[in-house]
């Protein structure tokens, strides 16, 4: 079995399936928020835009307006993305410079009367007398979803950069993040993908750890542990590679392959 696998891997190598790549710039017309980490009532965004998010935002795959039943607990990245013949890397901040903003949110009900309980907006006025006797009616108990808190977001005006593989036409604007923030796309450069033979290479781009080919060795990397898949940066690897302009990445990157 392992023999077969390596055979397949060898076949897969050769030359890139797509010939062209575009280096694009993403300009945040609005603050961008992802729930990368949640600490108490503060919700943090990491300084990166994941490539699955970008693939959906670019319209390469669609997720339905309404999710019901088991669909709410099981994402469909493999079904949606793995057959695509184009690819995009996670987007990194240009010059590593990134600015954030903090914002507070509270979510009020549409009732005239309400009370702020423990992470909960209460609107059952009839529970108030009971509560005053020291009891805790169920409407006063903490809620399992946030109604108040703080958001750390990527600030408006930040610039990100990433590489799109394959011959795809890109929209001028996309919407990303939990709040569907508007982001403008500019193509900075189009370039042919150059194949590099197996050797040791440093990689300056961010990489999605689930999209890396099997047949490379890793020497060092930094990891951004965020859902759904951790992002790698500063990777030193040995294996075949692609060169796009100034960037070198492992060859045969593909959605959800490992």
């Amino acid at each position, binding site marked *: 079995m392992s023999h077969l696998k390596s055979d397949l891997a060898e076949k897969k190598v050769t030359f890139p399936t797509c010939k062209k790549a575009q280096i694009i710039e993403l300009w945040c017309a609005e603050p961008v928020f992802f729930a990368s980490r949640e600490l108490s009532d503060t919700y943090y965004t990491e300084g990166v835009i994941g490539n699955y998010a970008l693939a959906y935002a670019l319209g390469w795959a669609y997720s339905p*307006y309404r999710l019901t*039943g088991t669909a709410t607990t099981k994402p469909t990245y493999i079904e949606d993305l793995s057959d695509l013949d184009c690819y995009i890397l996670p987007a990194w901040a240009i010059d590593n410079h990134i600015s954030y903003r903090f914002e507070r949110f509270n*979510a*009020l009900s549409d009732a005239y009367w309400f009370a702020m309980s423990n992470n909960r907006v209460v609107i059952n006025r009839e529970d108030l007398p009971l509560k005053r006797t020291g009891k805790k009616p169920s409407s006063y108990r903490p809620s399992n979803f946030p109604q108040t808190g703080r958001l750390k977001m990527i600030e408006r005006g930040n610039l990100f950069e990433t590489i799109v593989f394959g011959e795809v036409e890109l929209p001028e604007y996309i919407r990303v993040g939990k*709040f569907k923030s*508007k982001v403008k796309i500019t193509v900075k450069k189009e370039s042919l993908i150059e194949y590099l033979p197996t050797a040791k290479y440093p990689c300056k781009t961010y990489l999605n750890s689930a999209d890396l080919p099997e047949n490379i060795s890793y020497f060092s990397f930094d990891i951004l542990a965020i859902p759904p898949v951790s992002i790698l940066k500063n990777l030193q690897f040995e294996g075949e590679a692609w060169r796009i302009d100034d960037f070198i990445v492992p060859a045969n990157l593909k959605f959800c392959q490992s």
Partner: protein
Amino acid sequence: MSIEKLSSFLASTYENFPKGRTISLVVLRTTQSETIFRTEGSGEPMSSEFVQAGLENTEIIPRLVMTKRKQIAPERRKGREFLRQYNLLYNAKGDTICSLNTNAPCEMCIDCFLYGFAAGGEGAQKSRVWTEDAFSILPSTELIGDRTINALYENGTMRDETGKASTALNTSEYIKPSVHFLDIVTLKDVTADELRYAVGNILLTTRYGAVSSRVGRMDNEILGVFGGFAELPSSLELVQQVFDLLSKTDNVTLEHPLQKDSVVNAVKSIINQWTNKRGISVQLNEEELNNLVADIDTNWSMEKQEEFLARLNKTYESYRQIPAENTSKKSKGK
């Protein structure tokens, strides 16, 4: 009826998958009274942001921001007032009626279908109304005033009968009246009636921001309606282009208050050039825009609103999932 001109970008019925139909609205929001938009709580300054003044004028200025949620929340609530009035809100868990932010959306009403919900536990619905942070045209430094508030005792002084001084004294910032915010609202895969509902909510909502029972009066005007398969430029770019144009126009002085006419003219002359940009296929002209607004006014009129809302409500019938009776079993992993 001008809504027909948009028909190729309108859905005939609600569908669960996106189909790339986009209606975009250019909205001018003008404050009619003191208004408070802040994101850091009472006593904190107004929300503002340092951005480039224009696309050509690269000076950096602070602009007031009306954030996405400060727009969508009151507009949803406005629509829901009518849904409640006509009993079009459904029961969520048990006997609780559909209510925002109580972890009990009914998942069945017009508001749930159009603006979405996430806390249902048994599913989620994405919003098909996308908003954008709206910006003031002028720098925030010109648009902010200070008010001192004091709450007198009933004897008309700041000391009660025992001579104790009141602590109810505070100074807080506010946004002046006649401040113009420019905004782009995007509707995705909506039906004609959903378009009427969403635009109706925008036109009917008159109070925004904090303390909206006292201040926050605002007037919304639709300056442009586009149909296409892609989004319009961002509201930030629009406000920057307007700033450039206004500073080039001879008889416009860039200070508060701006003349509404010149703002409207500037916006219209800019958005008229957008028709040929990628993905934007149809723009309603002046007359068609007026017809659309008239159409929406008719559907929302006292005589027609009940019928209009009932008609829209009916379109979701086949998508409603009636929750199983009395599923008292706790779901796992909670």
